[in-house]
Every structure is written in structure tokens, then in C-alpha cells.
């Protein structure tokens, strides 16, 4: 591999890393807020799946990717509201409800997909996200083409990280969210509406999961297929926990996981002779090893998973 070959390798490796990390990161940022307010939402996988389908449906019906995004976000907001109603208002078990949302997502998307698109062989053409080159910045050698020639959701994902960090740790709203997650009763006694905060984080977080789903079906691909999220929602959950429930930690975890993916794609293409099952393990092993080795113990909010009821 010459110098140029190596450079190309690095550029495509980094670009792949960003593409793989993006859906996980967007969903994880939403989850950080949900988890911080004391709700465990394992239904994010199903929520993403609904976002994926509704994004395609919206874009197909209204002819624009923006309508697709809007449809997906609206639908996943509803799913979030449903989840919040069960877990916050009714105090149902969050893990069970989350599982129900996942199964619902699988069933509903399968049924709707076939109702709307049928069993036809051809894929209907739809409007999708376009690669946006940032003027000037995209001309920077190596990094320019990696960082500044991406689709809009990639920029959004990475810009959201500092925003989420500031909101969570530097604003009164963030403090409220954290206090609700740590000690809802104390928050309640000082006049914070615990239920309202939890509704807000769950619905907002679900919208982000919907956006993450959209990025898969309207960005990476240009169609919907059943079960296309393929576990990314669960990886996002893991990224939040490994990232110690912070936006920056989630970013690192998502990037690390993406790097593992990018690495295994390339190892496989190079034909190293190593059994591919080991290649598929790389992202998971890498993420676990690095985070377990360097990050240390991750402590969830004190009232994580506990429904709040006034006594």
C-alpha cells in the first residue's frame, strides 16, 4: 500500500465510521435524556423501525424527504407518548412496555409496508437525503472529505452532541431532568412536575429515535425492508450505558462501535482468511474492551426504571 493508498484507506475508514455511528448516536442522544429522567426505554429499537418505515412512506406520498422526516418524527412522537402513558401515567413495568413497543414496531411496520407497497418486486423511487458539501471546509485535505461531505443527519447528529451536553448540564431544564431521575420525590416537593418532565424526555427522545430510523431508510439506503434497524436501537442503549449517561460518552461509544464496524468491513474485503464470525465480533469486543478498560463503572440515575407515584 503506497502513501496514497494508505491515505485513501484512512479517508474511507473514517467516513464509514461516521456513517455507522450516526444512527446509533442520534438514538443514543435521545436515550440519554430519557434515562436521565429515570425512564428505561428498551423500546427504542421498535421506535426506530417505525421511523424508518414512516420516513419512506412520507417521502413516497408527499414527494419530499422533509415530509418523510416530518411523518417519521410525528409517528415516533406518538409512540413515545404511548410509551410514556403506560410507564409514567399508569406506572407499568418499563421493560415489559419497551418489549411490547419493539414487538409492535416489528408487526406494524411489516403490515403497513405490505399494505402500502405490496409484494411488488420493484422499489418505488423516493426522495432521499443528499450529500451536502460544506463550502471551503470540504476542501481541507483528508478531513474535509470525511467531515464535511456528509448527509444532513450526520451533521445534525454531531452538532447535537454539544447542544445536548449544554442543555443537560448547564441549563435549569437539564438540572430538572437530572433531579427527576435521581430523586423524583425531592423534585416533586420543590414543585417540579415529575410526570411532565418524563413525558417530555420520552417523547423528545422517541422523536430522535425516529430521526435515526429515517437516516437508515432515507440516508444510508433508499427503501424500507422489514427489521432493517437490525439491533442498532439496542446498541444505542449500550452506548448510553457505556457512555456513563452523558452525551459526550455516547458520542465516544458510538464512534468506537462505528470504527469496529468499519474495520471489520475492510478486513473482510481484504480476505484475511480469519473466520468472518470473528470479524463480526470486532465492534462489540472493541467497544466492551475499551469502555470496560478505560471508562470504569457506569452508574445509572438512582430512580432508573422506577415509576413515580405520589403517595
Amino acid at each position, binding site marked *: 500500500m503506497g502513501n496514497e493508498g494508505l491515505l*485513501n*484507506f484512512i479517508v*474511507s475508514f473514517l467516513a*464509514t465510521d461516521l*456513517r*455507522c455511528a450516526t444512527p446509533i448516536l442520534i438514538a443514543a442522544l435521545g436515550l440519554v435524556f430519557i434515562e436521565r429522567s429515570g425512564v428505561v426505554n428498551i423500546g427504542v429499537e421498535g421506535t426506530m423501525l417505525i421511523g424508518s418505515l414512516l420516513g419512506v412512506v412520507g417521502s413516497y406520498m408527499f414527494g419530499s424527504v422533509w415530509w418523510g422526516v416530518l411523518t417519521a418524527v410525528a409517528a415516533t412522537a406518538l409512540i413515545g407518548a404511548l410509551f410514556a402513558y*403506560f410507564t409514567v*401515567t*399508569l*406506572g*407499568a413495568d418499563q421493560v*415489559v*412496555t419497551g418489549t*411490547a413497543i419493539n*414487538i*409492535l414496531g*416489528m*408487526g*406494524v411496520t*411489516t*403490515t403497513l*409496508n*405490505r399494505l402500502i407497497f405490496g*409484494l411488488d*418486486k*420493484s*422499489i418505488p423511487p423516493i426522495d432521499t437525503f443528499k450529500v451536502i458539501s460544506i463550502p471551503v471546509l470540504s476542501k481541507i485535505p483528508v478531513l474535509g472529505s470525511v467531515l464535511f461531505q456528509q448527509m444532513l443527519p450526520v451533521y445534525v447528529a454531531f452538532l447535537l452532541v454539544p447542544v445536548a451536553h449544554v442543555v443537560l448540564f448547564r441549563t435549569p431544564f437539564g438540572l430538572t431532568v437530572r433531579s427527576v431521575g435521581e430523586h423524583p420525590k425531592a423534585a416533586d416537593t420543590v414543585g417540579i412536575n415529575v410526570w411532565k418532565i418524563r413525558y417530555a424526555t420520552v417523547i423528545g427522545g422517541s422523536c430522535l429515535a425516529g430521526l435515526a430510523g429515517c437516516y*437508515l431508510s432515507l440516508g*444510508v*439506503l*433508499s*427503501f424500507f*425492508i*422489514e*427489521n*432493517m434497524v*437490525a*439491533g442498532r436501537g439496542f446498541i444505542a442503549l449500550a452506548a448510553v450505558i457505556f457512555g456513563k449517561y452523558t452525551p459526550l460518552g455516547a458520542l465516544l461509544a458510538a464512534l468506537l462501535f462505528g470504527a469496529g*464496524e*468499519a474495520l471489520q*468491513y*475492510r478486513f*473482510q*474485503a*481484504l*480476505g484475511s482468511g480469519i473466520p*468472518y*464470525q470473528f470479524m*463480526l465480533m470486532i465492534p462489540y469486543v472493541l467497544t466492551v474492551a475499551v469502555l470496560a478498560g478505560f471508562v470504569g463503572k457506569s452508574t445509572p440515575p438512582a430512580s432508573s426504571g422506577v415509576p413515580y*407515584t*405520589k*403517595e
Partner: protein
Amino acid sequence: MPRIGGSIFKKRALALGLIMLLALVTVLGCGGGKTEKAETAKEEAPAQTEETEKPAKTLKVALLTPGPINDRGWNATAYQGLQMIKEELGAEIAYSEKVAPSDFEEVFRGYASQGFDVIFGHGFQFGDPAMKVAKEFPNTKFIITSTDISQPPNVASLGNSNLEQGFVGGALCALLTKSKIVGSVGGMEIPSIIAYMDGFKAGCKYIDPNVKPLISYIGNFDDAAKGKELALAMIQEGADVINHDADHAGLGVIEAAKEKGVMAVGAISDQNEVAPEVVVNSALSDLSRAYVLIVKDILAGKFEAKCVNYGIKEGTVGLAPWHNWEDKVDQSIKDRMNQLIEDVKNGKLNIADYVEKK
């Protein structure tokens, strides 16, 4: 305070009720899986199960597929075969898709106990459960595809040569490439896909020993985004013709070809429609016709518990029409492919000679 306690209890009851409703909706919404769903499918879509008004007892045929019937590939061909059985032979049909391995036996039993005469299991993985359940239901015929098992009196199998299919795909890729590097993305490393990839490599070698085939696996059949990334990595390594054997996820591979403007060769069904601008042709493996033929044999009382092998000779493996590529592909390439298929048919070309020894 008893009043609030009561309201919490009411809320709990309501929550339980709503969760059960949600579960019910989900069960109704899911395409398939358990035996009850066969009935649900019947209720929801009467077109799928028609009672023909023949005086004689209508033949009842059921199908179990491992994946979704709209995957534009492996599972879709089985569904197509089932439809043909309904249309041509007037049979009553039912199907369960996306059946999980842990449910294989129960779904088989469900259909068999409902009096289905023929039950297809679409894939080698259905073999062992079928042989077990078949002993309990001697009057039901079990037919398993993509394997070579049999068990008298009522288990037979339809083998379709994945090796030959891969050979056709590999040969076409090797003829089309200019960079001498081609790639194929597989779903999982299971016997049928391994055989396909062996055939793919053999096909490349047969056309030009200098062509380097790259092989990658996704690890499942759903993750199209991963399929796309694997194909992009191959293109980065210099591959200029990309192929797949990954059913639903293979659509991601074609998407990668579309994005990078390289040629693609589809698999299993004619995938030109998916992306006419890049899909030159497809390595077909279409057992739908074989489905009809074996049910015809059963109707004629000629059923035998044995493995029937299909392949290039029987016309279930081969190439699709060239569609919009008719004029864009060199006549020499088309002639070479036709010759290859002829040579396999008349025994002049033995694919096994080109398969790497392990």
C-alpha cells in the same frame, strides 16, 4: 389513603388491559410465526386462501419460510411457487413466514393436525424438525428445500444447486470486470450460501484465473445497511462488479453499486427491476416451478420419499433476461454465458473441477 390506593389499582388494571390489547394488535399485525397466525392470515386476506368449489377433496398445501415473503429473493420464490400451486392446481394454501427455528416443530404440527396434505419447509434448517414431526403424521407429505434429506414414507426434499447458481454469478462477474476484482456479499455462513460462494469462486476461476473474488458475510439477512457498507468496502478495494447472496439484505449491496456507479449481478430472482441502471443480470435460483411439479406428482400418486435435485439442467438455475442491458453488454459475453450453460447441460463442463479443494 384508600381513595388514591383505589385509583392506583384501577390504573394498574387499565395498564394491564391496554398491554393485552397492544399484544393482541401485535399478534394480528405480525405477518407470521405461529400456527394461529395462519388462520389470522386467512381472515385478513381472503385472496390468499380460496375455497375452490370442486366436489373432490381440495388439496391443502402449507409453506413455512425462514424470512419475509417480500424479500425479492429466496423466500419470495417459495411464495411464488405456492401461488402457482393455488392457481394451476386449485389447492387451498396457507403460509407462515419468518418462522423462528424454535417454532419449526410446532408450526409443522399445527398445519399437519389441521389436515394439510403437503407442507413445504423452505430451507435446509427445516430438515430435522420435519423428519421428527413426519413420524407423527404419516398422511402428510413434508417437502424440504435446499437439502438432500429423505425419510420414507413421507419426507422428501428439493435440492437446488447453489453451487451452479454461484458458478453462473461468478462467471458473469468475471466476464464483466475490467479491474479483475469482483465481490460477493453473503448473508450467513450456512451450507447453501457456502456452496454458492464456492461456486462463485469456481465461476471466476473458470473464466479467468487472474480474477480475484472477494467474499464477505453480513451475519444475517435483514441488515441491508451493513450489506451496503460491506459492498462499499469491496469497491474501495477495487472491485468493479458486485454480487450478493443475502436475500433482503442484498438490496443494500445493489444500493452500494448504484451509489458508486459499478455494475451489480443480482441473485435468486430477476433483480433488474430493483435498479435497472446497475443490475446487469441475475444468477437465478427459482424453485417455484419445482414446487408445482412435485405437488403434481403427489396428485398423480407418484410421490416418492427421495431427494430430487434441480439445477442448470432442469432450468431452475440460470440467467434472467438481459432487459435494458441487451445492447449494452458485449455479444461475446452473452455468447460465453449461453455456451457455459449449454456445456453444463450436456455434461461438457464439470463445475466440481473448478471448486477449490478444502
